[in-house]
């Protein structure tokens, strides 16, 4: 190890994580097999494709859309998506004149079952602080220019409410089926930092 000015080099996060995992395993508090399944599930199965299916169904099934806006968690569960961080999902609808965008100002609350784990920019201190103070400017920096007459509402996710945006269905998609709409729906649109594009 290279010599540093400090007398004691603090252990790296990687070593601390490994040490903690060993101790927890030895004490029977975690089962590495269960833990590997959880990690692999979040790495491969649980992600924004789930949310895209929810949105596409809401766009094509008015009854489902109504249930989704009334009780997000229950309507999302109908499609088989539930679990950690999916307990209190509230869905808000973006339209031509109202735009919702989601942030978690205190940490990183996010509806895992429908969007997976949050991207790094969502957790970044700058995004979390600035989206509340100057949403129009931040959205513009992220490539979303909204007209001055569009009303922006910033939704602060917490452990009590995790927001999901139902994006506006783009013009020119009227002929598409639910299955054909799914690939158009991006994670960013469901956080509210982008719009869904027809192509």
């Amino acid at each position, binding site marked *: 190890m290279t010599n540093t000015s400090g007398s004691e080099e603090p252990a790296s996060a990687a070593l601390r994580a490994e*040490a*903690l995992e060993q101790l927890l395993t030895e004490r029977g508090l975690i089962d590495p097999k269960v833990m590997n399944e959880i990690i692999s599930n979040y790495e491969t199965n649980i992600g924004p494709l789930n949310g895209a299916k929810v949105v596409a169904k809401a766009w094509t099934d008015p009854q489902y859309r109504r249930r989704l806006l009334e009780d997000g968690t229950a309507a999302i569960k109908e499609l088989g998506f539930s679990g950690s961080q999916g307990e209190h999902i509230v869905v808000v609808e973006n339209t031509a004149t109202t735009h919702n965008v989601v942030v978690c100002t205190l940490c990183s609350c996010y509806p895992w079952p429908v969007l997976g784990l949050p991207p790094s920019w969502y957790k970044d201190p700058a995004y979390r602080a600035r989206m509340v103070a100057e949403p129009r400017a931040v959205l513009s920096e992220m490539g979303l220019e909204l007209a001055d007459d569009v009303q922006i509402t910033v939704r602060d996710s917490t452990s009590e409410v995790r927001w999901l945006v139902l994006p506006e269905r783009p013009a020119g998609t009227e002929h598409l089926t639910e299955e054909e709409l799914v690939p158009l729906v991006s994670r960013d649109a469901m956080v509210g930092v982008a719009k869904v594009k027809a192509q």
Partner: protein
Amino acid sequence: MTAPLDIDGLAAPPRSNGELVFSEPWESRAFGMAVSLYEAGAFTWTEFQAALVGRIGAWESASAHNEPWNYYKLWLAALEDVLTDLRAVSASEVTARAQALAHRSPGHDHRHDHDHPHH
């Protein structure tokens, strides 16, 4: 970068989502430990979240950021805070074990007793 969801080909995930879920393997372990313990009932998510908010708030209010922003480092520290409160694992125990791991011989069989996550 390939989206981690692109697995079945039936309905490819939106392309603009491409980002690896974890940037380093230890981040996935830190994540997995917290979720495993929570799902096993060791603590409530509110308890863990409060610890995470505390760690993030402390980083943000520090006038000089000696440590660069690293979300999963704060996550891991929050997990240690909760486990300390529960008297399940103390910080000094983790430090001692981490130091022992740091002094392993260079050619050791790294993590030989664990399955590697499959990629």
